[in-house]
């Protein structure tokens, strides 16, 4: 049975690709006067030594010169649209942070193209990089290749000669990103609630500062929460906090930043309101030094409020799965 088409556009430092360099790129598509600089890897299965391609799943590779992210935007947008206009097609766009892509670019892609999702990735910390069977990329500008060693077989994500990427890696990666935001938010909720529940007697009264101080004891949780509400512009991770969170990501090989989250949720699930509500609650409870909204509240009153708001958001995401 023919399924939906899945397209990943990965804008990265592809080693073997010539960088896109478009000055004053127009909205024309295909771009007049400029060569098309992307290429296509088709998902495929290897069976009995033969490659069986699945043209419904593709990785579109595109390389942008560092610092030229803005100039590249029309090209990326048009590229996404070119694929998305085909029926029953979902397009995920992945933008490499180190090439200058920021949450603003995510917003621009989502608002001005038919891409379903747009993710920021980089520094080897996201699941787009290969780790334990999931992910596609090595950290060296190529699809992941891991030679055989100490009894373990080799890992080969793609075949460059055949221009194909192997299906299992594609599927796992696609599935991860299809649910990434839901998973991240769910884990944040669980970690937050267990952090407070497991330690505090529920009837105990706490000052606002006490809650903040206690959150600080779990530095990673603090940073993740701050990143979450940062995406709602309620607070901003400082440069050093962002660096620190990056170090956690590098260490655990997990993505914790939420800077591309809300924009995607807004576009896909139209759940900005639920997000705002939760972010506001978290901000007032744990980050706003001047707030007295939760002063002397018992945890037994407070945590259910937070839990419900999280759940509402997660339900909204879960109820609206479109792929």
């Amino acid at each position, binding site marked *: 049975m023919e399924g939906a088409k899945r397209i990943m556009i990965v804008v990265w*430092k592809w*080693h073997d690709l010539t960088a896109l360099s478009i000055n004053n790129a127009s909205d024309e598509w295909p771009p007049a006067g400029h060569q098309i600089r992307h290429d296509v890897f088709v998902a495929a299965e290897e069976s009995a030594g033969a490659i069986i391609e699945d043209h419904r799943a593709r990785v579109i590779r595109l390389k942008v010169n560092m610092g030229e992210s803005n100039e590249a935007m029309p090209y990326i947008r048009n590229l996404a649209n070119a694929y998305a206009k085909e029926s029953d097609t979902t397009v995920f766009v992945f933008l490499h942070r*180190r090439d200058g892509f920021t949450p603003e670019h995510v917003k621009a892609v989502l608002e001005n193209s038919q891409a379903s999702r747009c993710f920021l990735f980089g*520094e*080897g*910390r996201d699941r787009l*990089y*290969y*780790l334990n069977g999931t992910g596609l990329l*090595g*950290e*060296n*500008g*190529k699809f*992941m*290749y*891991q*030679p*055989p*060693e*100490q009894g*373990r077989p*080799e890992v080969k994500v793609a075949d460059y000669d055949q221009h194909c990427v192997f299906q299992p890696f594609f599927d796992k990666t696609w599935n991860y990103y299809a649910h990434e935001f839901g998973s991240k938010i769910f884990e944040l909720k669980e970690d937050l609630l267990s952090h407070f529940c497991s330690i505090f007697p529920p009837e105990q009264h706490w000052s606002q500062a006490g809650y903040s101080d206690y959150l600080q004891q779990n530095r990673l949780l603090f940073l993740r929460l701050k990143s979450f509400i940062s995406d709602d512009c309620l607070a901003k991770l400082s440069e050093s906090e962002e*660096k*620190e969170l*990056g*170090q956690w990501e*590098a*260490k655990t*090989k997990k993505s914790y930043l939420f800077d591309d989250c809300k924009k995607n949720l807004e576009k896909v699930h139209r759940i900005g309101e639920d997000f705002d509500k939760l972010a506001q609650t978290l901000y007032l409870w744990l980050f706003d030094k001047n707030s007295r909204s939760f002063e002397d509240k018992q945890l037994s009153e407070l945590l259910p409020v937070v839990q419900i708001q999280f759940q509402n958001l997660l339900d909204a995401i879960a109820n609206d799965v479109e792929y």
Partner: protein
Amino acid sequence: MPVESKKRPIPNFSRFSYLLYDRIYAVIKLHEIIKYQFTLLLNLQDRSKEVLEDYYIYAGVDRQRELMGATGDQLEDVWNQLKEIKIPRGEAPQSSRLFTEAERQRLDIDDFIEVGRLKDYFKESPDKKLFENQLLEKSILEHYFDIDRDRFVSIPIYSFAQLEGVAHFIVKDEEIDIDEDAPVRRRETMKRITRLLMVEYDGLLLDWDLDDESASYYQTSRVDFDQISSLEYYNEIDRNPILTSIGCRKYYESSKIYLQARIRQNNAIPARLLDEHRRRAIIAILIDSYAHNISAHSLTVLKWWFQQRAAQYKLGKTIEEIERRLPFESWGAKVVDFLMDQFPNSYGKAEVEEGVRATLARWFDQLRRRSQGEDPIPVRDQLFPLSKELAPLFKFLLEKGAFWSGVTRDEQFGGETRSFFDILWNDFINNPLYLGTIAYSERITKLNIHIRIYDEVRYQGYVDSFKRTYKIRQAEVDGQQKPLDGVIANIEMGGLAVQSLQHHYVNKGPMFGALAQALDAMPVFLPGGVVGKHAFFTLIENEIRNVKHFPESELEKMRADGLTLVIGIRPTTLRRRLSWNAQALYKVGIWLNHYTNMSIGDDHLIIKRLNGLESDIITRETHRAKLGGSFQDKICAAMLFNNTFISVQRKDASERDKAYYPWIRAAFSTGIEPNGVEENDFEVKLENIEDAKNELSRHPKDERGYFKKYFHIWQGAPLFPLTQIDNLHYENLARFKMVVIPENSGWYEKVRKEGVIRVIETSEKQTSEKEAYGQWLQNWFNDSQLRLVLMQGSTQAGHLVLDEDGVRYYNAEDYERLPHDEKITYGDYEKLPVPFAHSEKNKGADSGHQALGVRSHGVFATKFFDGFRSIDDLSFARLREPILAYELAEALATRICVFDKRLADRAPQKKREMLSKYLFCDFFGEDVADWKNTRQRGLWRYHFVIVHLSFIEAMLDRNGKRYGESGVVRFIEDEVLRDISPASRNFVFVITTGRGRTQWWEELSKSQYMHFTTFRPVESLIEATESGIVKKDDIELKYNLVKVLLGS
């Protein structure tokens, strides 16, 4: 004649003569050979001068007078004349007769057994006048003897089978007239006297060698005892019958053991004394160099400039003045708020405000001075901090300290090989505060460093004659062939008047690129590393300092255009027929590129310089150091060539010494020929100095030219097959990266003692560099099969495979293309991950990532790889040469453990964990608990264990006593040998200290642990570590350390 002592002067010869006379007289008396009154006239060849002339003297005249009681005999003038007179050969009838007979090889006991009459000796006739010396003899003898009656007998004085003189005994007639068989008449008595004289002369000569002044000639050690106790000598070389009559051969045969033992003893004592005098002199001379070059020239100026700069930071009044004219509130409040907002946790508001006000005030003052037309002063008027310039100055001064330790220790334990470019550019030229002020006494603040690289030499006449033509090497520059001759950089301390705030003190010259490339391809061996480097720098500094000898007109030009120092370099061979590739040296010329008069009075400058250099560094009489630039040069050149400073006076211990002493050659040229690629040099050495003098005497007196000095530095080289143990002394083994020795030759320890760590034993006759390196690494890594995996983040980006087939490097792409079976095989090797950061942004331990830092301008990227611009290239870059895989594997996988506070301080805790885990480099302070822990885990885990000497000294032995400096051997036995076999060939115990103490080394030298123990100056290790830390390149840090430890 076979015995060289003939050619040697006897220092203090008049004293020697006095004592010889005394001994002969006493022995004759003791043996009661002459009963009545007698005296003796002692004719000896004059041995007081370097060059022996063919005349005799009266030896021991003063003693003769004393023994005769002839002090008030009114013959004062006669005695004095006798003392001074030099008797030409023909004017001493008796002595001449004996010497002539001896030369004809006919001297027999019968020739002199005849007792003569004084009256016959002094008899005159119209055709036979007495010689002047005979008249003097007569005046004396007629006062004490009866010329008409009394007699004389002449006995030859032999010493070590060489005729040295004649003793004329004057005896009373009664001595002879007793009977026909009077003792003096007897043949046997004459033999006995000859033997006695021989023994006395020999004995005195042996004593004389004990005198430290005489010791430099080592008279008796030149005697060939095998020869003078052989039949062949008396049958073929010296057939004089007298030698056989007196039993000369048998005497020396039976006395050989005794005499040789005495000679050994003799040589050791004065040599030690002289060595001590010279050691002191070396220190004094080099201290003088520091005092002159650095203190008197540079630091004096810098101190003054910095004093003035410091005064400019008294800004209180200026701040008040600005406040009056422009209130802070109107311009500064916003700046303070901005800074406080950006950096809330740094300073309080008041401090931030103070900083802003002071910054403006400093700038305000400077603008005011400039607008008032005040001449800018270097350093004082540099607005920005001078840290970039100060850091190399401090490094330079720190290294001078290491140099001093090296001078006092004078044991260099190998050395380091670095490129000329690295040495000159990084460590010498980029030190503008020093170089730019060294000629400031002449008001010169601009220095041009000019490099000229020569290729070939053509001699006019014989090889190495004083007239030669050098050809300058050519290279492609901007698409054209150009001579490698030009200014590589200039150092400009002045020039602050230009419209630029950031003054550039060091500027690259137009030929920088081509010269840098050529110099970078020239590996130089520096004995003792930092010690050799500063010996080289001293030679250069001295030349710059020589600017003071130039006339004012030339100095004016230098002030305007800069003082130009030329460093000429030519790869050359070692002067000997060698069986190995002997492109061993660089001949380095240094001069100021400014004309000077080549004559001083009647002397030519180059002859004068060479004569000066030839002489000892201490005065003969008082043993005081001869201070001055020439001797500084001589000492430093000797060190660079022989690896030790004390070798400075080693003129003839080997053929090499004879060929190269006094280590420096003097030369001059008139500059590049019109063809632009040749230069004619006139260069003098000791061998041809006389010919050169003749030639130069024909040169115009007002000749002008460039006054040069040349010396030699060894080339660093990869491999030396040592096939004869004698080569150990002729070559400089420490300059080789690897030395190959025959299997079971027993030379391993000897070569290790030369400072070479990589010693490879093989049964192969021919070994390539790769094979040798491969074998070395197999030994070094215990026959391991290793795969060092260079990781970019979590991606395998490069594979360095080491096994019995050598070392290969594969980048990720190449490795992926290997046959699957091969990958399976390598995949089973021991894996050593070398993790690098994912990107430049997240690199090094400081970022909190478990990754090593590497920089695109660091050694890893530039030395080893082609096309390594950033970490993103790691998977695709290839090694520049396959052999580099060996060096890289060695650098990465060599295991080092350091116990030194200062080194540990350089590596922060976070970094230490990384360095330990991935680069096998453990840094510890000097904590006994750490030592015990490490030892318990096993020192065998390391290749190098580096321990600071003071840490060893302070540690307690089993009895609770400090080991102290003299207890280093005990420490090794107690602590190191617990789990290290003395026979281990992949373990080196390294002692480090910044001090020049040597007792520990002397103790160690007597032990059997020398082959796995060595020394490295702590400054070299610190520099190796610091440069890696500052560059944020962890691989460079490790590479530098391994390079310092292995020497190259």
